């Protein structure tokens, strides 16, 4: 039904590399689910049902990981034995952290002052930096450069910051 020893890319029939064609990813995921989803095995015996559950859950996990650029980068690192997950390794350059802390404070002030233009500009800035980091990460991953884990952590940090500021804006607008 599915070879559980394969990595997420292989399960979806993709090459194990950072650059992913999002359309191809989605097509591969849907095709796989059509074959393994428990709805296809509603009348099967319990063993096959359990297998379908595991296979379909694995397909969901692979798709969820690969369609999110940061998670995809982290996953590629984990395949090389590097844990970039920010929850277990939070080392970041002090200058970087200071800069983001200031941005967070600026966002809260702008939010209190109902200054949406500043918030919007802040989100744009952070998103632009994150996009630049993504290019870095893509290049470094292919070059197998050890500094890449740090870049991935910074990148995740910026994406989270942009999402948080966006949520702050939405809480006012909606």
């Amino acid at each position: 039904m599915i070879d559980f020893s394969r990595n997420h890319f292989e399960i979806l029939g993709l090459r194990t590399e950072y650059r992913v064609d999002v359309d191809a990813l989605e097509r591969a995921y849907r095709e796989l689910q059509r074959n393994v989803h428990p709805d296809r095995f509603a009348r099967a015996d319990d063993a096959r049902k359990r297998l379908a559950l595991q296979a379909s859950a694995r397909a969901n996990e692979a798709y969820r990981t690969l369609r999110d650029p940061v998670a995809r980068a982290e996953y590629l690192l984990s395949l090389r034995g590097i844990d970039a997950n920010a929850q277990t390794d939070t080392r970041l350059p002090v200058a970087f952290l200071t800069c983001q802390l200031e941005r967070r404070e600026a966002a809260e002030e702008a939010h209190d002052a109902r200054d949406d233009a500043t918030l919007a500009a802040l989100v744009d800035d952070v998103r632009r930096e994150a996009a630049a980091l993504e290019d870095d990460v893509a290049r470094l991953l292919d070059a197998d450069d050890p500094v890449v884990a740090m870049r991935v952590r910074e990148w995740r940090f910026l994406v989270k910051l942009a999402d948080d500021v966006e949520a702050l804006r939405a809480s006012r607008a909606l």
Partner: protein
Amino acid sequence: MALFQICEPDVSPAPRATRRAVGIDLGTTNSLIATVRDGAAVVLPDADGRVLLASVVRYGEREIEVGDGALAHAAEDPHDTIASVKRLMGRGLADATDAQRRAYRFVDAEGVVRIATRAGAKTPVEVSAEILKTLRVRAEAALGGAIDGAVVTVPAYFDDSQRQATKDAATLAGLPVLRLLNEPTAAAIAYGLDNDAEGTYAVFDLGGGTFDISILRLSRGVFEVLATNGDSALGGDDFDHAIVDWIVASSRLPALSAADARRLLAKAREAKELLTQEAAAPIVASLADRGRLEITLDAATFDAITRGLVERTLAPVRQALRDAKLSRSGIDGVVLVGGATRMRQVRAAVADFFGKAPLTDLDPDQVVALGAAIQANKLAGNRESDDWLLLDVIPLSLGLETMGGLVEKIVPRNSTIPVVRAQDFTTFRDGQTAMALHVLQGEREKVSDCRSLARFELRGIPPMAAGAARISVSFAVDADGLLSVSAREQTTGVEASITVKPSYGLTDAEIARMLEESFAHAADDAAARALEETRVDAQRMIAATESALAHDATLLDARERAMIDAALADVRRQIARDDRDALAATVRALNAATEGFAAKRMDRSVSRALAGKRVDAL
């Protein structure tokens, strides 16, 4: 059967019997059952032609009544007539609302809520099973035999206990459950397949007691739920109560007796329904305590007293949009589901929020059951060629209690199901061999703000220094949205044993006991079922004979015709009676009486077919 069935020449017979598959919408106010017939989903009516079964169960002096008959007794027999039981599914006594406490006598006990009736203490699972049994019997009569598989719908925002309770009720009612399906998703299937829809849709489902909002992407035969949210304790019922509260306040009524409260509630519901069409609704009631009451509710007042309820639907809508990473303008269409969306102020609020008129071309009362029937038909394997795929999500995050009364989320809300996720935990003390785990569902940080699903005890952990053990706890949510948990000590590979104590559910032993009790009545049930099946046979036999007579009566002489007519009359007379053996005997007699007729028809048909061939060949 003597009447050989003969196909038209050159038309191949049906390949194989289809499995009897049904979709059931087990609603707060009404329940429905549907099936797919000749490729189209249809709701099945009862003997009187009604498709809606009032979700009301009355434990009477001699028998259990379900539906309108039970509803009619609600005011005179309030404590033993249970309505809106869906709101108590998977709940404890502490969850019961004031209105529910006024209406019923609850048994004061821990765990799952129990209602005292003259038939004994009943759990919401048992009450719901009565409703499902009534629907099952209705479908068996219509489809001519036992149900092979059922899809039962649940509100998308139902948590694990509520889902499990629903599945238990179906099992207790003797239904083989193929799948639990989220109500808005069911509606989207019916709507999407009907309209060949593509794009991003919001399904706004306000039922009798529950509210769901689901955002779905429909694309190339895939129904993908992007986000879901809701309120499993908000529905049309609350609008009825708002009207009652308004009557009590504006007429300065003293505290109502249970019977008067039921009377007023019925009047409030009528007024609510009338206001979907009219500008004002007169309310006239005679109360046992206070006598005649007359008051008029106009649309503007109704709007004003229910504005808070309508507002409460919009917060989940906003959250679902945020979770789907969409703005209001990203929604291509809004589908309204649930009888409560007939209220004008609800429609107006939805249209206003999304800036477009909602879609209402499918009956909001039936669309969920129809979608469930389509899913059931597919899962039962009746249409292998059906190529659509459904990807649904869990509505609420699942997690475990950690130190300090906080919840560690393991599966986040809106994860596509099925999902399997594991997390490692470790021991707190040296030599610790057991661990207590508390499974919770909800979005809040603190344990006390989330819903307790179950407590687990892990035993058999090998003694090690504190922090050395690696216990991997795995959460698996299946395609029904139901959770199961397993645990394993990683360093030694010891499989820790688990004992589960559901917080607001029934244990396997309790379900087994209830099933056993139902077997005590099973002799009656089996007899009733056998009678029903014989009736179906008899009806089929009558129809086949009538059809044969209409086409080929000229083949019979007067004596043969008289014999068949007499046998037919016997079956007709016996079918209304409750004697299965006598009915079966008349069916056999009719069978014998038509044997010669069938043979003659066969000859004629064959010669016609051959004649046709010859013409073709020339």
